[in-house]
C-alpha cells in the first residue's frame, strides 16, 4: 500500500486539536471516528484512581471506529499528545470516504478483523469458569498477540501488570493477584512490578486446554 495516500479531497473533514485537548471522553456517546493526519493521540482509561495508558497512536492510525457500529458509549478517553490534525468521519460521510479511498477502507477492514479476533479471544477467556485458568489463558493470549511461537520457547517475559491481567481476565484485581501469587508459589511465574515472567508457557497451554475440555463435558 502506498505509504501516504493523497487525502486532500477530504480536507473538509479535517479537525484540529490542541496539545492536551481531550478528543473524546470515555462514556460519552460517540458517532464519529478519526484518522490521524499529524500528531500523536493517547488512549487512556481511568480506573479507580489511576489513569492507565492503553495505547499511543500515530499518523495513519484510526481511532473511535466503534462509533460507526452503534452509538455505544466510548470505551476510552483520547487525548491529543501534540497538536493533532485528524479527519473526522461519521456514519453519514463514511461511505464517501470508503468510495473515495480504498486504502483507508482496507485499513478499516483489517482493523475490524483484528477487533473481531481480539473480542473472540477475549470471549474465550471469559467462558472459562476457573479463575486461575482465565489468568493463565490471558498469558496465552498475550503470547499470541506478540506472535510468539509457544512450541519453540518456554520462558516468556511479559510487560504486564496485575491490573492488566485482571482487566483481560475479567476477574477482580484482588482475585487475580491471588491467582498470580498461587502461580508464584508453584514456581510457574515470577511476579515483578512492571513485568511477569512465565517460566513455562506450554504448561499453561496444557492447563487451559484441560480446563476447557473438562468444561465442555
Amino acid at each position, binding site marked *: 500500500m502506498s505509504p501516504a495516500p493523497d487525502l486532500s479531497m477530504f480536507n473538509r473533514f479535517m479537525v484540529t486539536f490542541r496539545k492536551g485537548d481531550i478528543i473524546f471522553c*470515555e*462514556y460519552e456517546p460517540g458517532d464519529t471516528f478519526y484518522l490521524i493526519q499529524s500528531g500523536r493521540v493517547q488512549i487512556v482509561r481511568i480506573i*479507580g484512581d489511576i489513569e492507565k495508558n492503553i495505547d499511543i497512536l500515530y499518523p495513519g492510525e484510526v481511532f473511535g471506529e466503534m462509533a460507526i457500529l452503534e452509538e455505544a458509549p466510548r470505551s476510552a478517553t483520547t487525548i491529543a499528545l501534540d497538536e493533532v490534525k485528524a479527519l473526522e468521519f461519521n456514519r453519514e460521510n463514511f461511505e464517501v470516504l470508503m468510495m473515495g479511498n*480504498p486504502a483507508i477502507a482496507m485499513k478499516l477492514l483489517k482493523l475490524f478483523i483484528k477487533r473481531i479476533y481480539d473480542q473472540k479471544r477475549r*470471549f474465550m477467556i471469559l467462558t472459562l469458569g476457573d479463575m486461575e485458568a482465565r489468568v493463565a489463558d490471558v498469558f496465552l493470549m498475550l503470547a499470541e498477540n506478540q506472535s510468539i511461537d509457544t512450541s519453540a520457547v518456554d520462558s516468556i517475559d511479559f510487560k504486564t501488570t496485575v491490573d492488566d491481567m485482571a482487566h483481560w481476565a475479567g476477574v477482580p484485581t484482588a482475585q487475580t493477584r491471588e491467582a498470580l501469587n498461587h502461580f508464584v508459589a508453584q514456581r510457574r511465574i515470577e511476579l515483578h512490578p512492571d513485568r511477569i515472567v512465565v517460566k513455562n508457557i506450554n504448561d499453561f497451554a496444557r492447563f487451559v486446554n484441560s480446563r476447557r475440555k473438562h468444561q465442555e463435558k
Partner: protein
Amino acid sequence: MSPKAVQYRANSIIYFKGDTSDRVYLLNSGKVSLNYIDIESGQEVHDLIKMGEFFGVKSGLGRYPREETAVVLQDSGVMAFTPAEFEQLAAKNTRIITKMLKVFSNQLRRIHRQVQTLLVSDAQENPETGLYKIGEYYLKNKRYGQALHAYKRYLVYYPSGSYAGDVTNKIVQAEEFVSRYGAGGPAAAASRPVPARRPEEPQEAPSGAPSGVPSGVPSGAPSGVPSGAPSEAALQEKTAELSDTAQAYYNAVSLVSQEKYLDAFKAFKKILEAGADQEYGAKAEFEMAKCLFHLKQYDNCVRSFSSIVQKYPKHPDMREALFFVARSYEEKGEGAKAGGLFKKIVTMAGEDDPIVRRARKALKAMEGGKA
C-alpha cells in the same frame, strides 16, 4: 500476479479449522459449507456460501488460524487470492469492501455484546457516573483543561443529571484554575501515566495506586503541573472565595444547559446590570444574546450580537456570534444573508472548531434544501 482458479471435488476440504494460510477465497460455482462451533451456544453451525461470495477473509487477511472448516458439498470452482491480489481487486471495487465492512461490523457488534454480558466482574459503570468520574479524576490531578472538558461534556448529555449541580460548581473551579494556572498538565506521556502529586499536599482520597504504577514525576519535568498549582486544601478555600458574580454566572449557565432559556436570560441580565465584574458582564451579555436565539427572538438576537461585535471587534467567540446571527437569519427566512455568513465563518477559521463544523453542516443543509 493474478488469483488462481482452483477446482474442488465434492467432499473435499478447502481448509481445516486451525490451519494458517493467507488465502482469501471467492466461490465461483458449486457449493461450499463453512462448519464451525458457535462460541456462545457450543452448537455446530453450517454456513452455506453463496456463489459470488468471499470466504476465509478474516483469517486470510488477518493471518489468523482458520476458525472454520471449509467443506466442498458439490464440485466447486473457487478463486484463491493472496492478500495483495485481494487488495488490488478491492481497490477497484470499493463496493466489495463496503459490503464486507457491513458484515464485519455486524459480527463485531455481536461479539462485543457477548463479551459485555460475560463481564460481570468488570463493574459496569453507568455512563453518567463514568463521565463524572473522569472530570473528578482530572480535577483532582490538576489537569484543569481536561477536567473542564469532561465536566462540560457531562452537562451536554446530562443537563439535569444527578451530578449536574456539583459539575456546574466544579466547572467554575476548573475555569478559575485554567485562567490562573493554565490548563494544567498536558496529556501524560506514556511513561508517566499518573500526574504529579506533591508529597506535602494533604491527600483527600486514599492513594489506591498499586505499587507498580509510578505516582510521581521528576520535579524538573518541563511540561508537568505548573508549580503554582494550588493544593487540595487551597482548592477548597478558593471555592469559598469564588466571587458571587462567578457563582451567579455559572448558575445561569446551568439554566441554559437545562434549556431554561428565559430564566437563564434573566439571570445573565442581572449579572450584566450589577456591573460588579467586567469579565463576567461581557460573558453574560454574550450568553443573553444566545438565549434570545433559543427564545426565537431572532431580531433581538441579531441586534444583541451586532452590538457585542461592535463593542469587542476582537471577541474571542466571534465565530460563535456570527453563527447565531446566521442561524437567526436562516430562521427568519433570509437564506442569502445566512448563507453568506456561514461561508464567512467557514473561511475565517484558522483551525477547525465545532462552530465551523456546525456552519458547514448548516450550509450543506441549506444547499440540500435548494436542490
